[in-house]
């Protein structure tokens, strides 16, 4: 465990910001209310951190004490690298958020799913959340920086995919292009139809032959 005092120093502002948000946003507070008295132990890798989220009525508590030290059992435990944890939190509601080989879940999984689904419905106003601790000006700057970075990451990802596709299809021709594969699939489909027609015709002729023999 990290030095407990450093852990407390890091978690306390985050806890205060979340509790401010819960106080100011009754919708979010109502979504969290059913989880009162539950606890979730979170253990991350890269970087290694461990803390427990304790849900209380109208507030949460972030504790650096893990279940071994507290001598108690959390309702659920999540163990994963930070990147996997973030993608689980930010994934779309329809996607299979918990299907990730890097995620280790134990305890009441149904409860984790309910919590994730509540968080997805929460529509958290990050500007308000950060503003409560960092002030409006700094939080605006940080959010703008984050939005610019995520735009850049999305555009770079799209560009990289397109360039890679052009390279392997057009330049080194390792894989056929979309049009060629579509044409080949169409030909296959036609061939299958012709075969089906021939098989049906053979069956009809065979039936005719059988009836003449019997006459």
């Amino acid at each position, binding site marked *: 465990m990290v030095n*407990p*005092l450093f852990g*407390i*120093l890091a978690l*306390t502002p985050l806890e205060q910001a979340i509790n401010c948000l819960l106080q100011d946003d009754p919708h979010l507070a109502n979504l969290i209310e059913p989880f*009162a*008295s539950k606890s979730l132990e979170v253990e991350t890798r890269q970087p290694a951190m461990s803390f427990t989220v304790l849900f*209380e*009525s109208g*507030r949460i*508590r972030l*504790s*650096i*004490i893990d279940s071994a*030290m*507290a*001598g*108690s059992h959390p309702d659920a435990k999540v163990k994963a690298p930070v990147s996997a944890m973030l993608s689980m939190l930010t994934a779309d509601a329809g996607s299979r958020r918990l299907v990730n080989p890097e995620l280790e879940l134990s305890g009441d999984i149904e409860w984790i799913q309910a919590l994730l689904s509540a968080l997805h419905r929460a529509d958290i106003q990050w500007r308000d959340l950060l503003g409560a601790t960092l002030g409006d000006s700094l939080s605006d700057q940080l959010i703008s920086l984050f939005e610019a970075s995520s735009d850049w990451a999305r555009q770079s990802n799209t560009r990289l995919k397109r360039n890679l596709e052009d390279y392997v299809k057009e330049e080194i021709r390792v894989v056929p292009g979309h049009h060629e594969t579509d044409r080949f699939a169409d030909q296959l489909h036609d061939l299958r139809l012709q075969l089906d027609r021939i098989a049906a015709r053979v069956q009809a002729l065979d039936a005719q032959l059988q009836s003449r023999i019997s006459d």
Partner: protein
Amino acid sequence: MTHSTADPNPPQGETTHFGYQKVPVNEKHERVAEVFRSVATRYDIMNDLMSLGTHRLIKRFTLELSGLRQGNRVLDLAGGTGDLSIRFSPIVGKEGHVILADINAAMLKVGRDRIIDRGLASNITVAQSDAECLPFADNCFDCVCIAYGLRNLTRKERALESILRVLKPGGRLLVLEFSKPQNRFISKAYDAFSGLWPIAGKAIVGDKESYRYLVESIRVHPDQEALLAMLDGAGFVDTRFHNVLNGISAIHVGVKP
């Protein structure tokens, strides 16, 4: 925080520590009471100064070790100005209850005023009481916490027995107290730093002697292992301690079987 108790019938000639001095048992009670009467109004400011603010983090760590949940009952023993009671209050919630207990009326008055000012009086009760014979029913607390108070007690063993009685089976005792630094250089630096406390006490509270007692009482207080043995001897199980700031403070935990 404060605490000391006079035995109504102490054996003749029995003495105890008051800092580096040996004093009759009954005299310690009055002298400790005088120390805390003198510093009560500026106690929290001095705490911030002497710990450079770290006492807030240490108390938060203590609170996390308590394992308290909504609806629990907790006794903040020798709780003085109510620093820990104020932190316990939102955790135990409306269904739970915190008792802030101390033998020193001056310290309790400061604590009570703080609690009322913060609007927390609904689940905190203030009780002037003696740690060595607690005026509470058997098995009624989920947690008893004594922060920076144990070293001021005249008979620590008797207080531990009393705490064990009022704890519910499975209930937890937390003792936050100054202890012995584990590193020699840190120990030297800490000794030098704590030597400045009486000077700061004179400048801020106008009382050098009380802070001289504080420094001396820390130095004669049992170290981590000795206090752990005391908890074991009193009948607590699953005892352990957590050093904080290299052992300048230590949090001892024990569970009532």
